[in-house]
């Protein structure tokens, strides 16, 4: 059954990017050291992936998604194949005097006889010309190799297999169901089973990444970049959970994590090229688009600014910085704080504004959402409170637009008044900017709410969508509160609530919070605040 799914996935991939990450993972699993993955520009010289094989020989791969290749297709791609074979690998990790590299042509289909013959003839004379021969990896080889990687790390229970098929067959235009996807990833990793043997760890991690490729394929096909980004962030976070739980060294998971990051970056690149070339952001039926328009724009503002902040945290120049700045300027009036799950998007926008010398405006945005929380979630509020960050955007909108399930859904039965998950983070954010007067003006209302914070146990459970263990802690703000104490707490470099691997990757933290809004905690926000301020 898995073979059929893998084959279906491969043959439905209409661009090499659709299986490039999975193929890289396959190579890493087979013991290759991945040196380079091309950004597919003119400098790639026919080499999409460059690796060092386990026997020390450099290898170059040209990936195609042409399905069956006949002579006319072959003629079209021949130039790239020539470059793949004839131009030596130029990479600092490959010695210039290294004799021939291994050249591979990878395709998600089969070769027609005429093409097979052409390659055969070429390979016969290649050694005489001092060139490497061309190895071909076709659909059958790919299916066999991918299935081999999975080993026992497959959806084993019928329930898990059903979940996999449902996720795989999903309509790619919907939002990725994060909770379901998380449960699926855990089932592949065998997360709740006995700890895997050391020899199996690599296989488990490789398997989860390749399975993620299958499941994320519908989103790639529909160009649903936000879901694609969310998916890769979830995979990366689950890998971190798995390796933290098993206390594995970085060498066992580093390449997989890097491939997830590539998936995330590719998602952002697709999102940017779509958003920055559009003037009109409406989508679908105009009759109902207005009801979701501001939510869409808030997400786009949050994700694009997050990407720019991410590049900044990685010390990389962003060539789209100005375009994003222009987009924020033009669209910020559409920001909508639909529930507390919007907090990370707002934080991302204000960090971006701050970095572009719009300090006052940034502070005003945070003040306005803090005000919204204390007003709407205040005990005296007549309006429905702002939902907690655990509820999906669609659940929240369904409630606001009265298309709920007749009061039977969870969100209608909860009371959001009197507490907030984000308020403490926002108040401390403002305190770090010395907005004492503004906080003082709000303090009376702030004290009517209690700060809620879920503390996962152990700390690595932060990476999970739901943690079985942990404690929901409530604390009332001080009455009175000392500004000195508040400032001290806000400025404290307290990182005990930040999991170890996130401390090493501040650029990932912002993306993580964007996808996991229920993990917004004062410690994590302060940690990011400091990282962005450096």
């Amino acid at each position, binding site marked *: 059954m898995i073979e059929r799914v893998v084959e279906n996935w491969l043959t439905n991939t209409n661009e090499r990017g659709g299986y490039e990450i999975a193929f890289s993972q396959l190579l890493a699993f087979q013991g290759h050291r991945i040196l380079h993955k091309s950004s597919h520009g003119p400098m790639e010289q026919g080499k999409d992936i460059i690796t060092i094989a386990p026997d020390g020989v450099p290898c170059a791969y040209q990936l195609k998604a042409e399905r069956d290749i006949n002579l006319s297709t072959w003629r079209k791609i021949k130039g790239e194949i020539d470059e793949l074979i004839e131009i030596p690998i130029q990479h600092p990790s490959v010695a210039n005097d290294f004799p021939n590299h291994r050249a591979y042509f990878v395709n998600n289909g089969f070769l027609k006889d005429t093409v097979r013959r052409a390659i055969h003839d070429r390979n016969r004379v290649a050694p005489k010309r001092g060139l490497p021969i061309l190895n071909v990896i076709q659909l059958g080889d790919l299916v066999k190799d991918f299935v081999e990687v999975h080993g026992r790390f497959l959806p084993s229970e019928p329930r898990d297999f059903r979940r996999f098929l449902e996720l795989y067959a999903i309509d790619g235009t919907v939002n990725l169901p994060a909770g379901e996807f998380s449960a699926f990833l855990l089932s592949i990793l065998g997360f709740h089973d006995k700890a895997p043997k050391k020899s199996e760890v690599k296989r488990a991690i490789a398997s989860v990444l390749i399975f993620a490729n299958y499941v994320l394929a519908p989103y790639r096909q529909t160009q649903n970049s936000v879901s694609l980004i969310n998916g890769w962030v979830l995979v990366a976070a689950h890998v971190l959970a798995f390796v933290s739980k098993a206390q594995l060294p970085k060498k066992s998971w580093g390449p997989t994590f890097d491939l997830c990051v590539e998936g995330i970056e590719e998602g952002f690149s697709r999102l940017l090229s779509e958003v920055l070339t559009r003037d009109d952001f409406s989508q679908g039926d105009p009759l109902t688009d207005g009801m979701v328009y501001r939510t869409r724009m808030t997400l786009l503002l949050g994700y694009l600014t997050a990407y720019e902040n991410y590049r900044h945290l990685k010390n990389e120049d962003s060539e789209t910085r100005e375009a994003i700045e222009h987009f924020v300027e033009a669209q910020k009036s559409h920001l909508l704080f639909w529930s507390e799950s919007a907090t990370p998007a707002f934080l991302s926008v204000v960090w971006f504004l701050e970095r572009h010398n719009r300090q006052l405006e940034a502070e005003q945005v945070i003040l306005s959402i803090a005000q919204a929380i204390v007003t709407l979630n205040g005990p005296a509020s007549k309006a429905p409170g702002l939902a*907690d960050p*655990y509820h999906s955007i669609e659940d929240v909108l369904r409630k606001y637009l009265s298309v709920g399930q*007749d*009061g*039977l859904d*969870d969100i209608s*039965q*909860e*009371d959001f*008044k*009197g*507490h907030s998950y984000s308020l403490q983070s926002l108040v401390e954010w403002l305190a770090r900017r010395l907005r*004492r007067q503004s*906080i*003082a003006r709000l*303090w*009376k209302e702030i*004290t*009517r709410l*209690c700060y*809620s914070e*879920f*503390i*996962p*146990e152990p700390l690595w459970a932060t990476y999970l969508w*739901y*943690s*079985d*263990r*942990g*404690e*929901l*802690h*409530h*604390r*009332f703000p001080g*009455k*009175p*509160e*000392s*500004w*000195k104490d*508040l400032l001290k707490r806000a400025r404290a470099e307290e990182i005990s609530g930040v999991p170890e691997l996130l401390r090493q990757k501040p650029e990932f933290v912002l993306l993580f919070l964007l996808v996991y809004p*229920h993990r917004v905690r004062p410690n994590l926000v302060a940690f990011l605040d400091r990282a962005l301020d450096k």
Partner: protein
Amino acid sequence: MLPDFPKLRMELNRKLQADFKKQTNLRAPLVAEIGVVAQHEGKGGSYETEDGMVKLIEPQHVSVPLESPVVSSPSFGYDDALRMVHEAAEKMAREQTRMLFAKVHEAVEEVGNSLDAQGQPLRAELILEMWERMQFDFDELGKPKMPTLVFNPVQRSNVVEQFRRLKNEPQLRMREEEIMNRKRLDWYDRESRRKLVD
């Protein structure tokens, strides 16, 4: 397998469950007034009191048996199921109310705020004494937000009488005013502490 209509039955189940909640709330109005804060993950929780003490919240399981038919019966219709659900709601309401009082009793005992009437019937003087020990909040017009008094329905006429006395007897009214003025000052004091200081 025989035809089973699982989707329809699931919907029927949800409908019955919703009705169960509604009926429980109707039968336990005091419990129904308490907001539901969901804990989406983890087990248990904690809260910090005003004096900085961290107290653990241990979730407690409340359940009541639903005496549904052991074997399917063609004559067991929706109304029968509804009747059963209402009976269970009655038990659940009683259970929840009992638990609420136990918790309140525990909290009141802990702060030493309980008042033992020593078997006397409820009197206006006792109500005033009770109010004396309680903390009151006031609305923006300075009107007290009066607490809920829970009593056995058999005492209804006596309770009405005692509240009539509170309203009409000058001495009792004066004492109530005195108490409320003091409570208002306490409230002003508490409200004035909702601020940011140095």
